[in-house]
C-alpha cells in the first residue's frame, strides 16, 4: 500500500524532492513522498555501484514507474557505502515507506559543510507549496 503523504521533521531536503538523514559523517538518502507519488508505483531502481562517488545536485541513479523514468539527484556529495537491496528487489518499497525501508543509498560525506545548503522541513514545504 502506498504511504500517506508525510515529510519527517528530522530529515534535510533537496528541492529536487530528495531527502538525507545525516548521522555523523554518513547519510542515508532517498526520495520524498511527493517524488514517489508523482512517478506512481516504482518498478525499477537503477542504483549506483558501491564505492562510486556521487556529487551534490547531480544524478546518482534512476527510478522508474511503468510510465516514466526519473533521475535521482544527490542532496549531498560522498562515497556510496551501501545500496538498499530491498529497493532493488522490490522498488515499490519506496512508495510504501519512502523514509524507512524505502531508502536508496548510504554514503560517507565528502563535504559536511554542504549540509548547510539543504532545506529544513519548513523550507521544503514551501517548495512543495510553490509546485
Amino acid at each position, binding site marked *: 500500500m502506498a504511504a500517506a503523504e508525510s515529510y519527517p521533521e528530522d530529515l534535510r531536503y533537496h528541492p529536487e524532492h530528495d531527502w538525507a538523514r545525516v548521522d555523523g559523517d554518513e547519510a542515508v538518502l532517498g526520495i520524498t513522498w511527493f517524488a514517489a507519488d508523482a512517478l*506512481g*508505483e516504482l518498478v*525499477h531502481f*537503477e542504483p549506483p555501484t558501491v564505492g562510486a562517488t556521487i556529487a551534490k545536485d547531480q544524478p546518482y541513479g534512476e527510478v*522508474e*514507474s*511503468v510510465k516514466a*523514468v526519473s533521475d535521482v539527484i544527490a542532496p549531498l556529495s560522498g562515497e556510496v557505502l551501501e545500496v538498499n537491496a530491498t529497493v532493488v528487489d522490490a522498488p515499490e518499497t519506496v512508495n510504501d515507506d519512502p523514509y524507512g525501508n524505502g531508502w536508496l543509498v548510504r554514503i560517507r560525506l565528502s563535504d559536511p559543510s554542504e549540509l548547510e545548503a539543504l532545506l529544513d522541513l519548513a523550507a521544503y514545504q514551501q517548495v512543495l507549496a510553490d509546485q
Partner: protein
Amino acid sequence: MAQTLQRTPLYDRHVALGARMVPFAGWEMPVQYAGVIPEHRAVRTDAGVFDVSHMGELEVEGPRALELLQSLLSNDLSRIEPGQAQYTLLTNERGGIIDDLIAYRLDGFRYLLVVNASNREAAFRWLKEREISGSDVRDVSDVYALLAVQGPRAIERLGLPRAPHNTFAMAEVDGVEVMINRTGYTGEDGCELMCMADDAGRLWDGVLARGVVPCGLGARDTLRLEVCFPLHGNDISPDTDPISAGLGWACKLEKEFTGAAELRRIKEDGPKRKLVAFVMEEPAIPRQGMPIEGGGEVTSGTHSPMLEVGIGMGYVPAPMASPDTELTIDVRGKPRRARVVKKPIYKRED
C-alpha cells in the same frame, strides 16, 4: 505553444474520481486513477472500464461505400456481414500505415470506422478526398462516446449474453441505448460500448456501479503491449508497412487497394526488418526510441505488470527476428540483454 485540449463528456467524473489527467492526442485524458498496476491487474483478473471517447468515428454511407472502402482499406471488407467488425489498415501509396482501425458493417450501405484519436483528421481527410459518387464520408466523432469494458468478468458484470468476437449488436445497458462491440485492445474478453455523447455519464455511472474498475490510458498501454497489439505512432506509422509489422494477416493482397502493389513486392522480397516482441533478461525497462544493437530500435517498452519484467516491441533486421535471439538494448548508455519472444508476450494460463 499552448493548445486547448478537448475533453470527453466524462471529464468531470474522471477528476472527481481523483484521476491524473494528461494531454493525449489533443485530449485531456485520465492516465490513471488508483494506479497503472492495480488497474492493469483488474482487467486481467476481473473487469475494468476505459473512457475512449477521444477515439474518432467516421461513417461511410451509400451504395458505393463498400467499393470506396475496398479500394482504400487493406483487409477484405466484403467478407463481413452486417453485425460484424473487422480490423483493417488505411494505407498510403508506399504501403505505409495511415491508421489502423476497426470497420463495422452497420448494414448493406453503411459502415462505421473507429479510428485512433491522433489520426482522426488524417484518416477523415484521406477518405473524404477520395470519395466517389455514391459514397459519403462523415466525421461523427463528436456525436458518440465510447467506453471499453474489458476483462474476464466484463460481460458477466454488464449482464450481457455471450457473443462471438468481432460482432456487434444494439442493446440497452442500465437504461442507455448502446452499440455493443465485441472488440477491445487488452487481449481480454469484453466489449466496447458506444452511446450518444449525452448519455455517457449515465452509462459510466452504471458500469462503475456494477463493480467495474475505472482504468486510465496508462493501463491501456501496458495491457495492449503485453499482448503485442501495435500502437499507431509507436510501432506502426505512415513510414512503416504492415508486412514488416507482422500485420500481413490484415492485408488481402489478392485485391487492389492503395499501396497493395508495394506490399506485394515487400512480401515477395521478404521484409528487411521485422517488428519483434522481446523480454528483458536483465533488470531494465525498455523505452520507445532506445537503439537495439545491430541496427534496431525499440518502438514500445514498459514494465509488464503480469510478468514483472521489462517488455517491449521493436524493429530489428530480419535475421535477428526469430524467437530466442539475444538482443542488446542501449538503456541510456548501458547495454542490457533482452530475448526475442513469440507474440503475444503474455498469455493467460487457462
